[in-house]
């Protein structure tokens, strides 16, 4: 691998070398206003495969791409009104806007929902690079999945395996980058924007205390299931590390079990998800991208006494890689004071038979 140090004078030569490398299907490491990124030509199938083997463990998440402007973005994704607003307000800038793919990129870039994250970095070098290449490049962060955020090349290389280092063709070293937060990721493919990642929140004391509330409209069962999947994709890492509890509220027929089916779909569970009203609890094993765990589907409709709940040992069920979805959550909140769901969903039936789904993230 070649390392070029970026100086105030050599931008043109650096760009020329980077473009040549990318055109040959090479993988480059480049600086942005957030962290170092790993880039390949997003329209080149072999190059994208190379990046995927470098990055590993996508587990359904999209690879984001960097483009030079909104016009270029619109060649590769459907930009709806929500996305238009975000592009207008925040791009170029440290934001990744997820939209529906137009299927013009190499396989492997889009998420399991066929969505793509788009970046227009506020970093001249990258924008120029894309303009010269005339193709979008991947904008995923350069670190191996789960490793330290790459603000310096030395940090990056120290945390890579030899195999990964062998995949890199060119590194543009711009020194130590200012420790800005990685981009805020927002999914615009639902009825309302869903923030998938916002690491700035940990610094705000008010944001930490208040739960985040989002309201979605679903027009049919399929949309509800897709919403469930996208929310779970956001919480997938947490599910693996600590387990996840989701409370489901809504009157009879609102669609709580449909949401649970969406969870099962995301987890790639093939068994039919049916109502657990009579057994209180149904358990399903899942295997998603080589991660194995249990999905516990609970229904408290028939629970009348605290001792009934005690028997279910709900707190013991919540382990890493396990997810609990509890229907009729409000039925037993007084009895469940020790258990706090991470996510609470309230589903209401609207006059036109659509559903209003309120997501409360605690």
């Amino acid at each position: 691998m070649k390392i070029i140090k970026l100086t105030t004078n050599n931008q043109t030569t650096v760009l020329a070398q980077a473009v040549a490398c990318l055109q040959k299907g090479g993988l480059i490491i480049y600086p942005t206003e957030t962290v170092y990124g790993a880039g390949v030509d997003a329209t080149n199938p072999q190059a994208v495969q190379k990046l995927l083997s470098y990055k590993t463990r996508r587990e359904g998440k999209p690879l984001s791409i960097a483009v030079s402007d909104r016009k270029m973005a619109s060649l590769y994704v459907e930009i709806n009104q929500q996305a238009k607003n975000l592009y207008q307000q925040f791009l170029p800038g440290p934001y990744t806007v997820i939209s529906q793919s137009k299927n013009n990129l190499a396989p492997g870039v889009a998420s399991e929902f066929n969505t793509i994250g788009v970046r227009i970095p506020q970093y001249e070098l990258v924008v120029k690079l894309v303009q010269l290449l005339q193709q979008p490049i991947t904008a995923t962060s350069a670190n191996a999945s789960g490793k330290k955020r790459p603000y310096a090349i030395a940090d990056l290389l120290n945390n890579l395996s030899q195999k990964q280092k062998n995949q890199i063709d060119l590194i543009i070293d711009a020194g130590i980058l200012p420790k800005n937060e990685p981009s805020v990721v927002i999914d615009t493919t639902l009825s309302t924007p869903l923030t998938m990642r916002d690491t700035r929140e940990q610094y705000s004391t008010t944001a930490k205390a208040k739960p985040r509330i989002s309201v979605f409209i679903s027009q049919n069962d399929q949309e509800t299931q897709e919403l469930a999947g996208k929310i779970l994709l956001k919480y997938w890492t947490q599910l693996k590390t600590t387990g996840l509890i989701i409370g489901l509220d809504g009157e009879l027929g609102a669609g709580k079990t449909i949401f649970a089916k969406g969870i099962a779909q995301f987890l790639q569970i093939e068994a039919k998800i049916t109502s657990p009203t009579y057994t209180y609890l149904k358990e399903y094993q899942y295997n998603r991208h080589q991660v194995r765990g249990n999905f516990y589907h609970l229904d408290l409709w028939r629970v009348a006494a605290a001792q009934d709940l005690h028997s279910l040992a709900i707190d013991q069920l919540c382990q890493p890689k396990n997810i609990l979805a509890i229907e009729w959550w409000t039925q037993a909140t007084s009895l469940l004071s020790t258990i706090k769901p991470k996510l609470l969903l309230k589903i209401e039936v609207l006059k036109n038979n659509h559903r209003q789904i309120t997501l409360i993230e605690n």
Partner: protein
Amino acid sequence: MNSPPLLILAIDTSCDETSAAVTLGPVVLANVIASQVNLHQSYGGVHPTIAIQAHLEKIEPVVKQALARALITPAMLDAIAVTVGPGLAPALEIGINFAQKMASTWHKPLLAINHIEAHLLAVLAVPKNKKLPIKKILAAKKTQQKIPSTLSKHWSEVIMQTNCAHKASFPVLGLVISGGHSQFIAVTAMGKYQILGETIDDAAGEALDKVGRILGLGYPAASVIEKLAKHGNPNRFQLPLPLANTKTFDLSYSGLKAAAHRSIQELETQGPLNQVDIVDFAASFQSTVFKHICDKLNKLLADNKMKSALSNTAQFTQIWLGGGVANNIKLRQMICQTLKPYALSLQLPFEKRLCGDNAAMIGVAASYQAKKKPLIAFDSTADLTSTLFDRRPSWSITDQN
């Protein structure tokens, strides 16, 4: 066919009920269901609870009472049978642990039974009657004498005479309709099952209980709906028939449940529901719930008839009905109507308690399972048995190992 009947102690703790029974072949010598018996209870609760504590406290007295009523001792048993699934995992474990302890103590074989299969085979249960040489057979078991083949033959003949389901040639079509299950099961041989259709969301009994609660009928509401529906107008409220245009034999009640809920809400905007409204709604809703089953049953039978004419597949010879909702007279009537053009008979368990959750049906199912392989006394130290009797909360009836 003429093998001597097995004396089995059966236990079921698959969900709310704690039940123990003693069966001799398909004959029910005792069937004890905790909630229906006056057991000393140290905690309140009118309706069954899932409290593990409740199962733990009830299991021993219930087993003792079953043995006492059957007038037998554990030493006389040929085997012990216990529900291993499907059901609620921690509840199943109570029954399994108790059964394992008993099997170890008395050196008896242990049989793992599927709860749905038991509901299906409940139609084969036979009540005690004078024609059956029960005393003779029990006496032989007490003294551990071999039962003469003439006695076994006589026994089998009386069973056949008493219960038509025993005369059935396969295949038979089974329906298990309860609060937790709604399935159409093809029985091609004893122990060989195929699910032809089942609910993709709620069970029929559940739909009745849930809508009944909205109507203010309390819980469990299904039997109250049945009583009120007798006086109601089933045509007053039009509710959508689920999956009317799909070709599968699956059932679905969540849409109907939601439609009923909306209907009731609309009705309530005009003022609180009066007696007539409630009674009519109960009739209309129940009628639609059962129409859905009969509609799919009809499609299934028509398909079966056509297939048997085209290829060499056999036609169903009988219909077996089981599960708590099977107690509903209206459902039975509607099914019989549906069966008329096919000239098929409907077989039902001989009494109400055999339809709901109970251990006698477990014993009946066990008596058939036991014929398949030689019975070996349960050994709690053997590795083999450790997974064989693990609780299987999602065990499907088609999964027979």
